[in-house]
Structure formats: C-alpha cells, structure tokens
C-alpha cells in the first residue's frame, strides 16, 4: 500500500497508551511474553496474529479482565501525562476512555439503537426520560464520523454493519479516546468493510486512537498506520504499514512460509450438479432464489460471489439437502433429485461445509470422535444392530486428527474446546474423508487465520484435482479469484451466468455484486448441455 493511499500520520506524536513488557502465564502456557506496544493519539494500529497468538489476552489485560503477571499499562490522562492504569479494574479502563467493540455484538435486540447506546449511562431512578442531550451529542458524533444509522429502529431490524456502527457509537458516546475493534470485518460485506475503514480514518483524523485485532492482511494494509505482529505470545515484528508487504507479514504471523494456493490447469469433466430454473420463495430476500440456473462439473470449482444476504443461504440450504425448490429441478449425477434429505445427500457423496461452523457444524458437548462420525453413525461401518461401534469411531477420529492436523486434547475431548480453525479442520475431516463427488463450501475460510485458511484452500484444490465438483460460496473476492475456475454472481436471489475466472474483470464483478449489472441473463455458457 503506497503512502498516498495511506495518508501519513499528521497528528502530534502524543503517546496515548504504553504497554510495557506485559507478561501473562496460564499455568505452563505463556500467553503474553514481555510484549511492548505503544499507541499515539490519532493512530490506527493493527494487531495481527493467528488464533492463540495472544491478541485477546493482551486486550483483556488492557481492559482489566486479567491482571498481568509482569509489566505495566500506562494511559495518558487529559493532560497528556502517562499514568499507570489500575490493573484488574474494568471500570478504570472505561474511565480512562478505552472502548471495545467485540466481534459478537453486545446489543439488546428489542431495544432501539438509542436505547442501546445510552443504556447504563443514565441513572436508574429518574422521574422522566430526557434524551435531547443524548440525541444532540449523538447527532454531532454521527455528523463528525459518518457513522450514520437510524437510532430509532429496534436493533433487530438493523443490518450487521449498522449494528456495528451502533457499537462504535456506544463507545464514542462514552467519550472513548481509544477504540479496540476485535475482528471488525469478520461479519461485514466488502462494501460495509470499506465504509468502516473510511469511518475509522475519519475518526483517527479527529484524534481517536484505534487498535484493530485482525487476521485479514489486505484490510490491515488498507486501514492501519502501523502493524504489530504477535506469534506464540511474543511480538515478532512491528512496522509502519507503508513499509510492509503482504508476504513478509504472513510469514511473520505463521513463522513459516505460507504455501500459496495455485490451481493447475484441468479440463472439467461431466456435470455433477445442475440447477434448472430453481425458484424458492420464502418471502425473505435472504432465503429466496428466483429462476436460478447453475452447473458444476467434475474437477471444477464454481465460485459464487455476492454480498451477504442475497440468497446464498437459500442456495446452500438447497444443495445441502435441507430445502427443496418450489419451482424447477435439481439434477445430481445426471438424475433428477426427488427427495431432498440431508442424510441422503451426505450418503450420496455430497460434502457439505456449513456457513456457521459453530452453530451448524458441531455439537459442542459431544466428543471430537462423535462429531467426526456424526453423518455416518447409521452406516454399517459404525454400528451393529443399532449399537455404536466405538472402536471404529475412535479409529477414524485418530486418523482424522493426524491427517487433518486437528489440534485437540484427543478424540474423546468435547468438541467445544476446539478453536475455530480446528473446528473447520474437524468438519473437513468429516466430509472429505469419503472422497465426495460434490463439495458445497459455504464461507469455508471466514474468520480463520492465515494458516487454517491456506489449509482449507489446499484441501478444496486437492478435491478438485481428485475430480470433485466444488461449489464455493464466498464473500472474499481474493479467495474466489484464486480458487475458482468459473465464477457466478448472486444478487437478490438471481444468479448470473458463470464466467471463466481468468476472464473476469474485478470491477465488473464488483458492479454485478452490487446489482448494477443484470445478473439473471442465464445465457448458457459454452459446454453447457442444453
């Protein structure tokens, strides 16, 4: 990123926060090992690192949720003089003007945006509610930051991006001078992410300091002034963003070469799945499809690009066997599907990777082994006369843990102990082990760190090599462009004709995703059987 796109820091180099030699141990695990971090007024610092690198622990110490074993946290007061922050006191952190926006929002869904923002700042006992002051203050904040959102709407009616804006406003309303954002873009569409970055830039220019916890490199390069990289509890690098390059940061984060996923040229084979004029109308745009035609062939990755909430969920439900078309038909392996049944689909060689891996992908209290076998417990391999064959289930899990590098205490550990990346590996082990003919990968690498992400990509490409058809639904254009052979765009339930990935113009793709170009032409592409 050039310094032109990344305006150099013009604010005074006034130190706002100084973390010095922060060390925190949990038993034998050293979560933070003598970490130093400085933050100036009006500066955006990106804190990068894989899962378990110590980012969250460090922020928890800053917020007083944990007390550091060694080291000090110093915060500048209103007079600009650094003073130590009382350790282990969240209230002190709040008083010092430190605000946090969590990845999972802490909002009361049935209350309005305004209610959520002022909640906790008003006295409990009051005769009447006067919020004109609050409204004026918020109007000023919104005008100054571009954080525009309708404060009178109940929160459940807002989009994810708007909810995040409420969270940021909540922190600013409490006079935050330092804002910490935990994985802010994990839940956002590319457009929303761009607007968030613009806002953060604007806020930084007015003197707000920001720490962004992230693992998506491109975003970090776009928004931050400085990057600090953590690995294994240590700070392994720190640099000005305009001097950083992607590859070296990635290597710093994982401590080894990150394998670049590369597609080999490969002629596609026979069609594996074809949707013909599929319409699903569920009243809600997110869950509806309109006259969708789509085909994926052997040895081909078909990318589905689109802004979240444009019908991807409906498409995924259909291919996963959880929903049926109202109109139109689905052919799998050349045969028209009559029974839409998730169990049947899984048994017929369709690997399904769910969008929300925590919610749909695993049963937290059941063991790793049980979670790996969950799709197949009814098969002869894992049961006799209805009694589970624990030996076989365990054996499969032991293999899967080694082959897919699932980091866990063992096959009998409850699955909820696993981190996001390892849950995804567990799901891959569950569905790919059976050499599927068709793979539905719905946001397979969202929220994963670089290492786990490249592992997911490698597995999908490997399956493609092996002749599987892959339908890859993603909001990450980089991911789609590196992996896909063909890309179709989904917008408002309409799916465009697929375009060969190497012919694609990025900006045109962006326009189609935004609905600026027609996506429902449905012109048959070359090789499409009529």
């Amino acid at each position: 990123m050039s310094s032109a796109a990344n305006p150099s820091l013009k604010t005074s180099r006034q130190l706002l926060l100084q973390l010095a030699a922060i060390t925190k141990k949990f038993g034998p695990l050293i979560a933070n090992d003598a970490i130093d971090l400085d933050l100036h007024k009006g500066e955006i610092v990106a804190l990068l690192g894989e899962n378990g690198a110590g980012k969250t622990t460090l922020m928890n110490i800053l917020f007083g949720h944990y007390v550091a074993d060694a080291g000090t946290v110093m915060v500048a007061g209103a007079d600009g003089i650094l003073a130590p922050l009382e350790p282990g006191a969240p209230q002190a952190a709040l008083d010092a003007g430190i605000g946090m926006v969590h990845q999972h929002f802490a909002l009361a869904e049935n209350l309005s945006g305004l209610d959520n923002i002022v909640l906790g700042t008003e006295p409990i006992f009051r005769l009447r509610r006067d919020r004109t002051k609050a409204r004026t203050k918020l109007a000023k904040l919104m005008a100054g930051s571009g954080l525009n959102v309708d404060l009178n709407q109940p929160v459940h009616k807002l989009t994810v991006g708007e909810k995040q804006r409420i969270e940021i406003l909540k922190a600013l309303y409490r006079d935050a001078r330092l804002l910490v954002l935990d994985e802010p873009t994990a839940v956002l569409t590319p457009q929303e992410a761009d607007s968030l970055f613009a806002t953060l830039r604007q806020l930084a220019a007015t003197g707000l300091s920001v720490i962004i916890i992230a693992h998506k490199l491109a975003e970090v390069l776009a928004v931050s002034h400085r990057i600090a990289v953590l690995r294994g509890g240590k700070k392994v690098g720190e640099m000005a963003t305009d001097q950083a390059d992607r590859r070296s940061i990635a290597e710093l984060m994982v401590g080894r070469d990150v394998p670049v996923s590369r597609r080999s040229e490969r002629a596609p084979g026979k069609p594996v799945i074809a949707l013909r004029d599929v319409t699903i109308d569920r009243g809600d745009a997110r869950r509806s499809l309109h006259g969708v035609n789509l085909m994926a062939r052997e040895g081909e990755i078909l990318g589905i690009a689109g802004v979240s909430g444009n019908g991807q969920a409906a498409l995924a439900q259909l291919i996963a066997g959880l929903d049926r078309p109202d109109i139109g038909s689905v052919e799998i392996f050349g045969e028209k599907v009559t029974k839409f049944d998730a169990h049947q689909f899984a048994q017929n060689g369709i690997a399904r990777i769910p969008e929300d891996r925590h919610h749909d992908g695993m049963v937290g209290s059941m063991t790793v082994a049980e979670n790996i076998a969950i799709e197949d417990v009814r098969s002869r391999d894992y049961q006799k006369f209805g009694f589970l064959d624990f030996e076989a289930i365990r054996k499969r899990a032991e293999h899967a843990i080694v082959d897919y590098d699932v980091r866990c205490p063992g096959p009998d550990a409850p699955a909820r102990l696993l981190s996001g990346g390892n849950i995804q590996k567990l799901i891959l082990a569950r569905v790919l082990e059976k050499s599927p003919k068709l793979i539905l990968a719905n946001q397979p690498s969202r929220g994963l760190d670089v290492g786990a992400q490249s592992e997911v990509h490698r597995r999908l490409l490997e399956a493609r090599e092996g002749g599987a058809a892959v339908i890859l639904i993603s909001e990450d254009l980089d991911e789609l462009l590196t992996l896909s052979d063909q890309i179709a765009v989904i917008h408002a339930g309409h799916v465009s004709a697929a375009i060969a990935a190497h012919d694609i113009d990025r900006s045109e793709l962006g326009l189609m995703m935004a609905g600026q170009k027609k996506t429902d032409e449905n012109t048959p592409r070359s090789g499409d059987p009529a």
Partner: protein
Amino acid sequence: MIRFEPRTNPSAIMVYGIPVMAAIIAILLAAIPLALAGAPIIKAYGLMISGAFGSMFSISEMLTRATPLILTGLAAAIAFRAKLWNIGAEGQLYMGSMAAVAIGSGVIDGPSYIMIPVVLIAGAVAGAVMLIGPTLLKTRLGVDEVVTTLLLNFIVILFVQMMLEGVLKDPMSMGWPQSEPVIDSAVLPPLIERMRVHLGLVIALTCAVALAIFVKRTVWGFEIRAVGENAAAARFSGISVTKTMVLVAMLSGGLAGLAGVSEVAGTRGYLATDLSPGYGYAGIVVAMLARLSPVGVIISAVFVASVFVGADSMSRAIGVSSYLADLIVAMSLLCVLIGGFLTRFKVRFEHQKSAG
C-alpha cells in the same frame, strides 16, 4: 465485587460432588424450620433416618415410594436431554394407570407371565400417546410443549375422574369414585413377603440401566444427544429432528405411563384420583438432582423418597408438619441449581479498591 468466570472443563469431582453436597446442605438447612418449630433437632434427624432406613419395613416403604419416582425421573431425564420440556408426566402417569386398569381388571385374563407384560405395555403405550401430540405440535408448529403438556395434566385428571364416575367405576365401592381392582394375575407381586415393595422396583431399575445404555451406546441415543445439544447441527448433519423428538416422546411418555402401571398394579391395586401425590412433578426434581443421568436418577429417587418417608415418620413422632419433607426436597433442588451454576462458572470475589 463478585465476578463470574466461565469454566471450560469442570472436573469430575465437581460434576459428581456438587449434587451430593447440595443434598447434604439441603438436609442441614432443614434444621432452621425444625428449630423454628421448636423441635429437638438432633432427635428429629435421628427419627428421619430411622423412618427411612431403620427397619426392613421402613426400607420397603422407602423403596415403594422410590419406584414411581425412578420411572417419572427417567421420563423427565430423557425428555430434558433432548430439550423436550415434558411437564406432563403426571398426566401420562394417570393415562398409563387408566390403561392398566381398563385392561387389567377383568376384561381379559390369563397367567401372570402374560397379564403383567400386557398391562405394562398398555400403560406405556397410553403414556407415550399422550406426549406424541404435544411433540408434533412443537416440531411442526412451534407450539410450546411446556404449556401443552402442563395443561394436559389437568385435562387427564378430570378425564380420569369422569371415567371413575362412569364406565370404570367399581359397583362394589359403595359410591367412592374408584375403579374395580386389578385382577390377581395382573398384580405386580411383592418382592418380600408381607412388605409393600413390589416387582415395579425391579422394572424401574431395569429401565434405568437400559436407558443409560440406550443413550450412551446406541445410534438412537447418539441422535437424541445430538438433537438435544445442538438441534441445528444435528439437522445439518442429516439427523431428522422430528423423528428423534417423537422417539424421545414415546420413551418419556412410556416411562411415565409405566410409573402409573406400577402404582396401580403394584402399590394400590385400584385406580383413584389420589393415586399420585405429584410423582410426575417430583420426577422433574429427581431428574434435575441426577443431572439427567439415568443411573443417577436411581440415587436421587432414593434420596427424595427417603426424605419423604423419613420426614413423614419424624413429623408423626414429634408432631411437626410433614410439609417439612417438601421443604427439604425443594431446597435440595435449589441447591443443585446453584451447584450447577457453580460447575459452569467460577466465582471470584474481588476487594473493591477505591475507583481511581
């Protein structure tokens, strides 16, 4: 300031120790109402223990009381495992007992080895049918089963009353609303001569062990656990949530129905509307104390039964209200709920420094 931190992996000692501790604390807390009633506390505890365990007779009485509690406890445990909130065990119990009486009081006759299984099956089926309706309403239409099963209890009891005033009424009962007695070949025989404890106890224990194996080791048990812990993930993996729920309903309703058969064909001999002093509801407490473990249900049912029987006999001996038993059971439930919270969260007390 008090803070709660979630525990990721509670130790085995906590998981098994906390219900035991809760029970002990609840019994100790009973000293307070005893003292308020002016009763000699040590003597009262002694009488309670001897009332439940002091003689062959008292043990038999205690186990007779534990029998239906094991069955209704299992009914609640299996349903709650699948997050099917069956509050209707009381009604299912009465339906089970009514089916047992309808078939077992002279309509058909045969040797015991045929008649006993027949009344057991009839009762289980009747109980199961009672729960299938609310379950389908839940899975298909999203109707809250807490409401439907709870309200069905009152409907069933009124229905039983109507039947006892009508077709099931014993003409020899001199006007009392009670059914004809269960015929001898269908009666669950006592296990010990001249004692009340009967074959129902063996059936209940068998059910508990069988259910434990079923949940832990079979494909269906696997699916029940998966649906109960995360229905969305179970559905995604291809498990039919509706089918699993119906299976759970049949098991839960069936077990509650068996409790009714056991009471009517084992303990009482005939059906009346005071057959159950709330065994269906007490089963929920038993299941919660056992943390929904089928084998644990045996232990907690014995605990609850001995509190009831012990406190009963103590209150008779020193003249305090027998409601004390209800109090102890209720307090142990509260203690277990608090204990359950403590297994999931660590409580940290922090000295509040003057905020800077």
